[in-house]
């Protein structure tokens, strides 16, 4: 399964995802510009992505705890998600995401 990730510089990368991996882990493993400081523990919001319009319903809305965490970034949009809270599965094959500025490493 593949995901398409547009980085902060506007370049789109097609990444091989593995069933059960967190989307954050796929993006980090491929060396894209994602800080993911807390390693997926929903404690940092530095894995912030925008979900492609046609994918938002498939991925679903953030949990209450994730909404709280999203308060700590200044560039939230209606399609914001924390990518460590999205698990790779067949249903997400072809998923399109854009990395938020607030996910960038320093």
């Amino acid at each position: 399964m593949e995901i398409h990730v547009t980085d902060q510089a506007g370049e789109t990368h097609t990444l091989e995802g593995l069933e059960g991996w967190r989307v954050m882990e796929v993006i980090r493993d491929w060396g894209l510009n994602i800080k993911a400081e807390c390693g997926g523990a929903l404690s940092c919001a530095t894995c912030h992505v925008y979900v492609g319009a046609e994918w938002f319903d498939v991925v679903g809305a953030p949990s209450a705890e994730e909404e709280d965490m999203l308060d700590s970034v200044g560039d939230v949009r209606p399609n914001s998600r924390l990518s460590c809270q999205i698990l790779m599965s067949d249903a997400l094959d072809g998923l399109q995401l854009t990395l938020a500025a607030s996910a960038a490493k320093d």
Partner: protein
Amino acid sequence: MSGHEITTDVVVIGAGPCGLFAAFELGLLDLKCHFIDILDRPGGQCAELYPEKPIYDIPGFPVVTGQQLTDNLMAQIAPFAPEFHFNRMVNSIDKQADGSFRLVTDADEVFHAKVVVIAAGGGSFQPKRPPVEGIEAYENKSVFYSVRRMDDFRDQDVVIVGGGDSALDWTLNLQPIVRSLTLVHRRDAFKAAPASVNKMRELVMEGKINFLQGQIGSLEGENGQLKHVHLATNAGDLSVPATRLLPFFGLTMKLGPVADWGLALNDNTVVVDTEKFETSVPGIFAIGDINAYPGKLKLILSGFHEAALMAQAAKKIIAPNERVVFQYTTSSTKLQKKLGVA
């Protein structure tokens, strides 16, 4: 506190779990240490990022939370009475002619130490800078990430951004002295203590402050002096007069000054050997998440092991002529005396 000078055996930079345990291993060898950390309390990532979350891989503890581990480490090192200097960043380290080190903090304090242990983890915790173009130019002039002096905000048009305790507390504290105050948060739900949220809502009802649901779009001003903050709100774009902006988006780790200390680095980590965990500068050690060596795992337990070996090497530098006998805390009365249990 400026102009203050402290002389000690060891300065540990960073009071995260690995730094804290170093005080135990150093203490058993009669070495006294001082901690410097930019946070306002011990525990590093455990205390700042996940105090309530469980850790399952600390040997001997089937489960322990970040805060419990911190509290336990503090109790464990208490017999050695390490001293803590919080809310300070170590800016520079310079080796002196006699081989010792001179460290200077951002509060202009000077520390003299025979050995320096860098336990800086993922770097120093610093306020998150919101992704707003050109914000750097305003920082420390009209954009602040904390309130050091309330007077800087007196009679100003203040915009505070965020929904946590810092944002709400400063909204309540600054309101009586400002010219105007606007609280901006992306939604009408707050993580802050309910009592502060209620007080904030009362002030809004009384017309004493504004609350706008939205996010910062851009800043307008010149020479670092802010004039307006442009907001993207649910009701469209708005411009608010602002001479001070306080964004409260929590903390993030930045490598910070460690990069400038002349140490061999590898991708934001400090290169060490695996016998002594010494850096490319003899006498400066690095343990915990901040170091790099083949096979490194960024786990707390790795940092504990590194602390034990580092302490042996530090002892040889500080007391080269003293013979160190290997002993167990279980059976050595000498060690137990140091721990205050014999």
